[in-house]
């Protein structure tokens, strides 16, 4: 029986090794300077790159974080500090439900509430879709982390006459910083590779665009389009894009971890 169990481990790890190995093999070989500096070439022409998609992804993720992080952390604070009632229970349950909603459905909603009013696809719509996906993860981890902070620490602050809001922000939240940031970066890593909610919100763009109200290219979208294309050169760029996307996700996580470790006394 031990043999069977080991066999399952081997079968499960095989695709992981295969995916990472193949990604590195095709990705590294496909990267070049043009990939990072140029925009896509018209169909049929060789070369070009994904510079606009990389920047577009950063813009969309920036918008998503700007909206999602404050709401997520705020909701987490509410749940941990004021949420021991029926409303808190309802919010907790709703956050868990939202976590399971398929990302493509969130895309439909962002389309309905942003794209239809703006009358065209935009980076903002993509950012809103991703923000909706970030909030449940951030709020639930923030709550968990705040609840780990010892009650005596809060009481010590009240004892010194510190008002409740200052206690929560400068004592409780500050103590839990590293945990809260871990939650934020988990949410970030999750939405960074999302493609489905961007299909009809950010839509993609062949050219440079830095305006939040215009259709914007994104790395996952570009990978999707290129992967489904019949051109070898586009396949090559899809692999390079995938490697960049994975590196983006991993470095985002690493950078935040490093900053947290240096910036506060608590370590992740």
């Amino acid at each position, binding site marked *: 029986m*031990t043999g069977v169990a080991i066999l399952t481990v081997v079968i499960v790890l095989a695709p992981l090794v295969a995916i990472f190995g193949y990604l590195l093999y095709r990705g590294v070989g496909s990267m070049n300077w043009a990939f990072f500096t140029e925009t896509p070439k018209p169909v049929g022409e060789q070369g070009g790159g994904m510079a606009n998609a990389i920047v577009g992804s950063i813009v969309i993720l920036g918008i998503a974080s700007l909206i999602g992080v404050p709401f997520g952390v705020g909701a987490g604070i509410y749940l941990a500090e004021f949420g021991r009632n029926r409303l808190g229970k309802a919010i907790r349950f709703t956050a868990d439900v939202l*976590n399971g909603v398929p990302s493509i459905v969130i895309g439909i909603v962002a389309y309905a509430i942003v794209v239809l009013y703006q009358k065209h696809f935009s980076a903002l719509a993509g950012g809103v879709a991703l923000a909706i996906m970030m909030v449940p993860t951030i709020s639930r981890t923030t709550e968990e982390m705040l609840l780990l902070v010892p009650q005596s620490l809060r009481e010590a602050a009240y004892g010194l006459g510190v008002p409740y809001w200052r206690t929560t922000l400068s004592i409780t939240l500050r103590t839990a910083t590293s945990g809260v940031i871990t939650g934020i970066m988990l949410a970030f890593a999750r939405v960074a590779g999302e493609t489905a909610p961007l299909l009809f919100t950010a839509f993609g763009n062949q050219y440079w665009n830095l305006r939040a109200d215009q259709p914007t290219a994104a790395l996952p979208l570009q990978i999707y389009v290129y992967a489904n294309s019949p051109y070898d050169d586009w396949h090559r760029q899809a692999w390079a894009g995938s490697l960049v996307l994975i590196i983006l996700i991993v470095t985002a996580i690493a950078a935040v971890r490093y900053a947290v470790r240096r910036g506060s006394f608590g370590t992740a």
Partner: protein
Amino acid sequence: MPGPQPVEQTKVTAVPAQPAPLLRTSSGEIPDRVFKSAMTACGLAVLAVLGLIIYELVQRSGLSWHAFGFKFFAASEWDPVNEHFGALPFIFGTLVSSLLALLIAVPLAVGVAVFTTEMCPKVFRGPLSFFVELLAAIPSVIYGLWAIFVLVPILSRYIQPFLQKTLGWTHLFDGPPFGYSMLAAGVILAIMIIPIISSITREVLMVVPQHQREAVLALGATRWEMIRIGVLRNARAGIVGGIILGLGRALGETMAVTMVIGNRPEIAKSLFAPGYTMASVLANEFSEATGDVYLSALVEIGLALFFVTVVVNALAQLLVWTVTRGQPARGSA
């Protein structure tokens, strides 16, 4: 001198709760209230978002609902040109691909979880679960890319001919082995949901008390019997919860499936035939849908998908909670 003294005394007795203002100074009270309302607003925003999702989906699918009613979910015709819409092929595709994924993923995921908690030397435990969870961090579109260039060729060259030769009599594997098929979708979904199922199973197995294992071993059970009787049976509800959570993910998964399933709205008996799922029809057709009824029909598919995944996830949450809250189903062993 004697005059002011009684005045001071009455002051003290009149306001016995004198220390209170020290804690709640007038400068602290209003910011506290503002703070609390701001945080409550953030919490309410979570409720509002869910409300908004339901409202938008229901409202924007109304046109299709009025036109087709319940027949929408029973009709198998999908003809945007003549505006005849039936969602059955997509529902079929979503169900079959997800169930196929479960069929492949569950034994493997449970096996890995059992290995990491019960057999694995402690040194490898951390790295092993880390690697398995790394699978969960890979974006869906990269799974799809890998599936197009690695999985699909392997399937069409080796696995499909093999299945046809050995299990051809079931007629589940009829037709030309093109690779892009329901089978490919099931396999890539299985790879994607293994981390979810195995990490939850691992958590649940670790909750099973050690004395449970020792008791079964003391009765003379072998290690395998101990795992089966002492561990797996106790954790049954939680494992089922993990499996259903994996199902929830598989039902809503979009990109990887869209890239390999072949995207043809047909109900075929063979797993080698192309199919179409609810999520992938949204991905492919939503931004190109012309006409209000067409768009409304797509939103209705989204609503159905939303409804199914919410029910499935709620069920899974409930099952996992019953175990991890320290109430293993007693009497089931």
